[in-house]
């Protein structure tokens, strides 16, 4: 599971903004919302006749595979870097 999300934005004026998001504490804080999203997803699976267990398992697999992802975009003096560890 991802532990840390890092976002770095470099503005054209050269001032960088760095944001570190510890995933687990944020998920815990937003756990009611997460539970609601999971519930809605489960209902959607039932409506479309998809196995809820299989869907949740696959969703968890996608989330677990996220660490190591890195997106780095630079254009001129602006840049955005997103990394998931």
């Amino acid at each position: 599971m991802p532990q840390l999300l890092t976002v770095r934005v470099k503005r054209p004026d050269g001032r960088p903004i760095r944001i570190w998001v510890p995933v687990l504490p944020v998920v815990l804080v937003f756990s009611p919302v997460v539970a609601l999203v999971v519930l809605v997803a489960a209902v959607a699976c039932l409506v479309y006749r998809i196995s809820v267990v299989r869907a949740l398992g696959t969703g968890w697999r996608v989330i677990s595979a996220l660490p190591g992802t890195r997106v780095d975009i630079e254009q001129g003096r602006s840049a955005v870097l997103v990394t998931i560890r």
Partner: protein
Amino acid sequence: MNEQRKDILDMLAEGKITAAEAEQLIAALERAQPEAAPSLDARPKGRAKYLRVLVDTVENGEPGRVNVRVPLQLLRAGVRLAALIPPQALGQANAELNKSGVPFDLTQLKPEQLEALVEHLDEMTVEVDQPDAKVRVFCE
């Protein structure tokens, strides 16, 4: 190694060496195989962990760079997720693709085929060189 073995068999077929000599050479090759194997393929199949996309561009005189690293495990998970798409949605997507002039039938795309594609991605390298842009897609 297979190439060397083939050379030996060719020499035997051409009568350049005797069967006994061929046997000795093949035995020598087999003895040398464990030591030679790592150098034959520095990146063994299945070892690649990430798909990298590197794009270098120059737009309006300003250099641009895109560097994306995606774990192959994420692609595999995505394939499994795509397998959950309900047939109704695939039908709608097919209709939209047809409307856009892309006669592609997504229902014919089987998850196992996609998984095989992802498995073999580590052997793929795509390089596009243009005067104002350079694109590289590879696995590492």
